[in-house]
């Protein structure tokens, strides 16, 4: 394969609060022999605005995204939710070649590795009990796995990547894919339900012996971590990129 040139999109909240997730993504992609470029004028995919009802106000944000990312072979991001937003909701822009390209070529990190690079053994060492929280937009939007409501063949791209890790024990949850309650601005508009959902998600992981909760989206984990810290619980959140980068490549 020719060396791929990919544009790395780091969601705004990862950029500001969880740089280590961006770094892990960047390093991992480099180790996989890819030319990774981080366009420095990028900001945000616009989802926080659009989900609040301000899709029109988000258009300049969308345009900035397209300007920054239209030249790459692929756009890769450590967020299923942002990737889904670009794919699904950039339909309100005029569908120029550039917009179409961006929508077609954006990938969440795990699906980029399994579907484009066609790798499922990243030679990871991760001797922990891990619960996989399947973030909704990645699961039901990008179809990174089969969701529990649909009567279809079962699969999960995230499990596929983690299963081969050395020493890992992936725990089974009582509710395999219930929402954590983050939901973007939902976490602010509906704080009580949001937190209640988060607590339920955390106790499912605790009950089943997880030491670590991982997910394709740091936003879910930021919400869960906020509750874990407030309640002094003994469980950690780690973004999937950080686990996947824990390797001997």
């Amino acid at each position, binding site marked *: 394969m020719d060396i791929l040139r990919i544009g790395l999109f780091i969601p705004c909240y990862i950029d*500001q*609060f*969880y*740089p*280590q*997730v*961006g*770094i892990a993504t*960047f390093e991992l992609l*480099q180790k996989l022999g890819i030319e990774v470029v*981080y366009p*420095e*004028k990028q900001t*945000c995919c616009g989802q*926080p*605005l*659009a*989900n*609040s*009802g*301000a*899709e*029109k*106000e*988000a258009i*300049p*944000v969308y345009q*900035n995204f397209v300007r920054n990312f239209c030249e790459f072979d692929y756009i890769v991001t450590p967020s299923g939710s942002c990737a889904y937003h670009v794919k699904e*909701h950039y339909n309100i822009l005029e569908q120029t070649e550039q917009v179409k390209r961006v929508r077609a070529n954006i990938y969440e990190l795990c699906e980029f590795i399994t579907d484009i690079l066609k790798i499922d053994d990243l030679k990871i060492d991760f001797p922990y009990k891990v619960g996989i929280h399947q973030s*909704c*937009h990645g699961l*039901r*939007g990008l179809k990174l796995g089969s969701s*529990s*409501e649909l*009567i*279809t063949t079962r699969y999960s791209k995230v499990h596929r990547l983690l299963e081969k890790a050395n020493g890992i024990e992936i725990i089974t949850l009582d509710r395999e894919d*219930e*929402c954590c*309650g*983050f*939901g973007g601005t939902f*976490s*602010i*508009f*509906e*704080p*009580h*339900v*949001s*937190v*209640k*959902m988060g607590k*339920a998600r955390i106790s499912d992981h605790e009950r089943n012996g997880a030491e670590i909760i991982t997910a394709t989206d740091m936003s879910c984990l*930021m*919400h869960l*971590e*906020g*509750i874990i810290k*407030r309640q002094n619980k003994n469980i950690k959140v780690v973004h999937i990129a950080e686990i996947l980068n824990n390797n001997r490549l």
Partner: protein
Amino acid sequence: MKGHSYKAGIFLKDESRADWHDKTLWMVRQKRDKAARSVADWEDLRERASSIKEQVLSNLDFYLSEFEQRAVENGVKVHRASNAQEFNEIVYKIITDNNAKLVVKSKSMLTEECGLNPYLEQRGLEVVDTDLGERIIQFRKEPPSHIVLPAIHLKKEEIGELFHEKLNTPKGMSDPVLLTSAARTHLREKFLSAGVAITGVNFAVAETGSVVVCTNEGNADMGVHAAPVQIHCMGIEKLVPQTRDLAVFTRLLARNATGQPITAYTSHYRKPRPGGQMHIVIVDNGRSDRLKSEVHRSSLKCIRCGACMNTCPVYRRSGGHSYGYLIPGPIGSILAPSYNIKKHTDLPFASSLCMSCSNVCPVKIEIHDQLYKWRQELSEKGAFSPVKGLVLKIAGFILSKSALYDFSGKVARVALKGLPRRMVYSKINVWGWERELPAVPQESFKKWYSKNSGKNNL
């Protein structure tokens, strides 16, 4: 008016009760999964159901006139009501024309929607809801909290207390079998003395002019068989073209609603019995307006199975009454604003957009997408507070300019680091009510990249 978020907060104050509510409905969802898995071609069946409904909605005038013509040929009196007021008047007139004083009614969300019970009661009639759950909430003077399980918010002990008060059952009796038996005795008397029986309609078959009612208690039949006059109330969207289409819908409905292979009773009503009267009232009440909307028309496909409520993590943890609309949960949240956009501004936001509702919907309504679109519509129609509108405008401006974004991010991080905890966690920080904010890192990813990308690169 306090919205969903506020009422959900009250519901969640009793945490163990909220957990019980969540578990009870999750169990229904699990039963649904099991039942759905027993059908090999489940996903195809959903697709088929969706396309039949699509066909009906695209040719609604044709199917409505076919249905009406067949029904009239069968000896049925067909009435059309364009709104709730007309509907209530029509039903009232049928009842008074027949000098009836007592009406028994089996479950119908349409009559709830039109406010039929209070309308008739204000005019001196007695209306008895005969579905057990409906009777319970009627005794309590409460709206249903779920469209299939109207009293799901109540525990058996509370029903025991209620029946002790209303039906004179022994104090402290909470055995469901005994309580149900008391309700049967009570309702039997009502069935035998009613002058008119009203039912809802699950499906109306255009080619035969007949209506189909699905119940688990047989209460629709008890009413219809005993009373000399029967009235079936249906929205215009209840049509299916042919009897054979029922093979698709009856396979989906009960499985998706409660996990049963089929409801205990699937009753087909076609013509009045000798000497009796059969009326069908077809109601619009805003439906044809929704039909005209390209965005919202698919909500008319709904067959009222309630599965989107059982699967909804928000519904399970906030209860049906927190929605402030007679149909709660995800489907209610996309229906309510089309009736009253000002009153129900909060409902499209009462969702984390997790999409589970769309995945369980037996007729494939993309509920999550409609919630998203309602949010846009509400904002365009100026339903937000000026402050919220301004905040969103400013955020849009900042996020479209990378220098401004970098600067704002930095200011926020410095502020979070430098300010005393009690200022960061003041009351206006809604996030911080029950959650910590993330720890503030030394530098942003962008900063790290600009320092390190050169030397790290291949």
